[in-house]
């Protein structure tokens, strides 16, 4: 791929980017969020038309107009959020769009599927609904989908984002064996240790341009990190808080999950005044349900107390009034109203508090002033407070939501993947502000699937596994190996 340019309106997502990968190896494509990695791969996959540039496969120029054409040409892509449709069975998902004939012979399809799975050392119940698959299971199904379609070029976007360290290693082992059979594997990732451990070459994108492409053996993590951000990465935080009095206490919390089973099985956790606690864990271990139970949008049994006041039976509105502040996981769904202006969005969740509300009425000037403060907090770039928040980039929306969560005397800040969509600088600023709010008398719980980020930024890290919160042994609160073991359920 050479000289690829893609414009969204006046913004160039890619300008003259290039990328090359040879057969039989795993290649990495790295860069910050918004650097254009996914866009570049979508061009290759025919899901995005480039404004200019050339794409060649096996030396022949190609210009796919749809994913269908790309798939036919042997290119397969696994997107970050997987394309498994939960309402279909595993087999239906496997064959979708690449069925053997107009009549679905499920028996012969299942036989071939089992054969492919055996080749990779996987096992599937092909007639079971795919909604029951774990993230690792979905990832495996995605790889089999590539095999089913005889893909020769395989692109995986952030394949390990939702996998445990052990599952990640297994995935790379599978990919290595595919590469050994002659496939071209491209991994889009931001996890540099993986790149160094498993890939042959690495290409760095920054602000839509290719800034470096070289064999992995000739580089280091530090050098790559520098290339990615374009300057020295910020140093990890060194000042750790000394914990104050217990402030927010959770004990024996039980929560039913989306599928009706018990997702949180008696979790206990204490946040002390002034500290930022990270909750590490592989996706799907009850983090979402725990988070929602603390917010109050999901019923729970057990004890939740803020400074001695019980929260059990309290509706979310009352918890927000008591000082709960949120940075929800999926900001589009949970955090903002996309068609609303920044002014209206700034008040969301705080709209019943004075001065934004005077009794049953809202106060326009106060809302405007509040919105300006929220936007300034993390230097949200916007086209006026009266413009719709959907006109902001994802990173700027996230800054705005974070700014809102730290406004108006927070007591407990709950953050779920608060730095999703933020660059390294933005990440550091959000954590710094959360710490600042805590030093002023609040406490915070940060849920993230990125253990390294938590270790760098939090005062203390605990792990969640199988719906239980596990505390590391004294003295090992920020020990990577200790927490990693707790995350996968290995007893210390």
């Amino acid at each position: 791929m050479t000289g690829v340019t893609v414009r969204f309106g006046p913004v160039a997502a890619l300008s003259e980017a290039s990328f090359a990968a040879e057969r039989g190896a795993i290649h990495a494509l790295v860069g910050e969020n918004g650097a254009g990695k996914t866009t570049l791969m979508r061009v290759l996959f025919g899901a995005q038309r480039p404004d200019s540039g050339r794409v060649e496969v096996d030396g022949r120029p190609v210009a796919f107009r749809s994913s269908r054409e790309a798939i036919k040409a042997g290119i397969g892509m696994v997107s970050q959020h997987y394309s498994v449709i939960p309402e279909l069975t595993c087999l239906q998902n496997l064959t979708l769009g690449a069925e053997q004939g107009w009549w679905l012979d499920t028996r012969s399809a299942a036989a071939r599927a089992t054969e492919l799975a055996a080749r990779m050392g996987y096992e599937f119940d092909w007639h079971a609904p795919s909604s029951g698959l774990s993230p690792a299971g979905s990832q495996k199904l995605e790889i089999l989908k590539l095999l089913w379609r005889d893909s020769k070029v395989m692109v995986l976007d952030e394949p390990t984002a939702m996998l445990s360290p052990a599952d990640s290693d297994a995935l790379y082992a599978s990919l290595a064996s595919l590469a050994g059979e002659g496939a071209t594997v491209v991994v889009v990732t931001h996890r540099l240790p993986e790149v160094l451990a498993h890939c042959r070459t690495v290409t760095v994108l920054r602000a839509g341009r290719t800034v470096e492409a070289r064999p992995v053996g000739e580089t280091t993590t530090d050098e790559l990190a520098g290339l990615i951000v374009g300057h020295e990465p910020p140093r990890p935080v060194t000042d750790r808080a000394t914990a104050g009095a217990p402030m927010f206490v959770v004990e024996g919390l039980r929560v039913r999950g989306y599928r009706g089973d018990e997702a949180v099985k008696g979790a206990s956790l204490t946040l002390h005044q002034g500290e930022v606690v990270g909750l590490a864990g592989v996706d799907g271990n009850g983090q979402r349900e725990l988070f929602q139970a603390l917010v109050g949008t999901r019923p729970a049994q057990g004890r939740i107390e803020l400074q001695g006041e019980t929260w059990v039976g309290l509706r979310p509105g009352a918890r927000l009034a008591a000082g709960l502040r949120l940075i929800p996981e999926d900001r589009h769904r949970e955090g903002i109203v996309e068609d609303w202006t920044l002014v209206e969005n700034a008040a969301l969740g705080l709209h019943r508090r004075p001065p934004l509300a005077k009794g049953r009425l809202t106060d326009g000037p106060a809302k405007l002033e509040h919105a300006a403060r929220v936007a300034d907090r993390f230097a949200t770039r916007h086209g006026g407070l009266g413009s719709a928040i959907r006109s902001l980039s994802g990173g700027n929306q996230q800054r705005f939501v974070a700014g809102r969560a730290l406004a108006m005397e927070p007591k407990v800040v709950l953050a779920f993947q608060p730095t999703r969509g933020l660059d390294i600088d933005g990440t550091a600023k959000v954590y710094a502000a959360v710490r600042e709010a805590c030093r002023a008398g609040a406490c915070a719980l940060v849920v993230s699937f990125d253990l390294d980020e938590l270790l760098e930024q939090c005062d203390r890290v605990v792990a969640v596994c199988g719906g239980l919160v596990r505390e590391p042994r004294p003295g090992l609160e920020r020990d990577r190996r200790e927490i990693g073991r707790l995350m996968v359920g290995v007893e210390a």
Partner: protein
Amino acid sequence: MKAPALGLKEVLLALVCLGLVVLAVVVSGAAPAEALQRFVQGSVVGPASWRRTLQEATPLLIAGAAVFLALRAGLFNIGADGQLVVGAMVGAAVVLALPGPVGVGLGVVLAMVAGALWALPAGLIKAYRGGHEVISTIMLNNLAGFLALWAVKGPLKDPRQQTATTALLPSGSTLPDLVAAPPFRLNLALLVAVVVVLALAWWLSRTVAGYELSAVGQNPTAAATAGVETRAVTVRAMAASGALAGLAGACVVFAYERRFYADFSPGYGFDALGVALLAGSSTLALLPSALLFAILATGTTAVQLLGVPRGLSGVLLGALIVAFAVVRYRRRSP
């Protein structure tokens, strides 16, 4: 929120819609030019036409506000028609039993209560069972029709009349005219309608409850996360919408018709949906929007004298909704 620019595709569609209406006129054997002339004369020329148009605009404004309120909460209240009919029926029944100004006042209140109650099942089913309000309100509309038919054939029927209708309300038991210079008349009900729209605009933009209602309509998950009781808001919005629709029915009875009869509503509720959709995101736009629909209604009635069947109004309504909605309610491309 700026509407996306119009392309050739949209203009073409608008032309097709216009063509359909002309075709309907031609099929029914009238000359389009003559029909257009009748249309304009019957709706906006002369005091008598204006009286009819403003009379028609009254229920459209109030019911339009009802649908608009529900739409803000993310609810398609197709049931406004049934709520209006039930409201009108209850209003008429109250005044027949208790004539006089007190009866009118009580009639208005009970009409609103009846409308709210008729909408309530749809709100509850939506909030607690996840059933789509469009389906439930369609069922409630049919039920309202049968209830009204039974009432005017049975308990409310005026025995002196051949047809299924109530007796005429006594003359002291109606809403007074503000201006009475025949052939022009302007009833208090129109003022009520305008006040309802202004009050709704204020309520939606200046109160915490209005803010929460809009939040639920735009993004229920975010609203719930922000501490809004989404189910309660949904139920309340549906009931309030029904109450307004009931008020619209009471106004028609007390200001204009002075009686209740079988097939009382010529489809006010569906026109009201058009009114609300056309108003888009602005509450005050309900005023011109309702006026336009009123002109369309009186105009097509006038055209009917040429032998054009009443189905023309359906064609016109459908074509209009498509044309306007494509311009205003197009979803953004992914």
